């Protein structure tokens, strides 16, 4: 308690208190680390457990569907209707590339926030200059995330049209649950990014806001690494 009180010399009752030097002054914590950053890492750890369970469930039921459509093999139903393997690898490869690029845009958004206000050489080229635009990279990340969601909506719609729903077979149940949960996480990430973009446009994000952008970036990269695993285990390994 004493240390906590001592760490709020400016009478701040919140987690942080802003100062004119462009940096936040944080409360003293027993770990010496900001609790928000510990919280996001602990949250991501719990998310590892969630996705490990979902992926394991998918793998446990893989190949045990009694009726099609199947992910990697053809199927003919009792009426003689022929079904092609349902997974569309080219489309999913494109969406994977989009999500990877969004992670690249996200690191540049964080870097742009960290570098805001620092001088840039007069001879700097367009690449150096564009790296300083946090709004551009936040917008790019949100756009690429939304594009990924568009690919997923297309995939889900085409699966339903081809006769695969969450109730059709074990593959449908586990596939839609796993990728649906991931898509929900991407949706949250896009909303988060758009909120940061709105803040950046209204009052501007600077080095004092590094932590809030960093936390969003950690979440976004986590969503990316989960997809890296899903893409290999669900789509490529047959």
């Amino acid at each position, binding site marked *: 308690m004493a240390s906590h009180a001592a760490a709020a010399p400016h009478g701040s009752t919140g987690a942080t208190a802003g100062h004119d030097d462009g940096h936040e002054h944080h409360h003293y914590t027993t770990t010496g680390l900001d609790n928000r950053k510990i919280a996001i890492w602990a949250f*991501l750890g719990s998310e590892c457990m969630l996705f490990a369970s979902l992926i394991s469930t998918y793998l446990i039921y893989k190949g045990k569907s009694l009726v099609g459509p199947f992910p990697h093999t053809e199927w003919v139903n009792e009426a003689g209707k022929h079904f092609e393997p349902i997974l569309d690898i080219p489309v999913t490869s494109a969406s994977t590339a989009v999500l990877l*690029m969004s992670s690249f845009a996200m690191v540049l958004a964080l870097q742009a926030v960290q570098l805001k206000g620092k001088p840039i050489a007069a001879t700097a080229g367009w690449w150096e200059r564009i790296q300083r635009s946090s709004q551009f990279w936040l917008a790019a990340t949100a756009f690429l995330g939304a594009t990924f969601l568009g690919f997923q909506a297309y995939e889900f719609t085409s699966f339903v049209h081809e006769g695969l729903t969450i109730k059709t077979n074990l593959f449908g149940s586990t596939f839609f649950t796993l990728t649906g949960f991931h898509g929900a996480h991407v949706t949250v990430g896009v909303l988060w990014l758009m909120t940061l973009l709105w803040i950046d446009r209204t009052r501007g994000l600077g080095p004092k806001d590094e932590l809030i952008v960093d936390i969003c970036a950690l979440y976004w*990269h986590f969503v990316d690494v989960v997809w890296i695993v899903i893409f290999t285990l669900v789509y490529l390994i047959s």
Partner: protein
Amino acid sequence: MSHDAKHNATHDAAHGTAHAGESHHPTGNQYLKIAIILTIITAIEVWAYYIPALVESPLFNPALIFMSALKFGIVVLYYMHIKFDHPLFRLLFTASLILALCTGTALMFLFKVF
């Protein structure tokens, strides 16, 4: 430790040693190189998927899992900058990841996947 020292230590640590380790963070060009490496690995994975001789090889699945783990590691180490961050964050994530992997493996043993 004086109040100011505590205060500054907390401030630096709050940003994951952003100030102390700022010079160790990758630059924009290095991030670009990492993105290219990730794209190339993904392209190799997809290319291998379309080569029947490779798909039938017993090494196909382990190779794909290795490439996936490699991408996972690159993103976590460099994009999530866990390599440059405070060891507590590394511990939190790694311990959870190991626990998650063990849980998943145990589940699959339980349901006789292996």
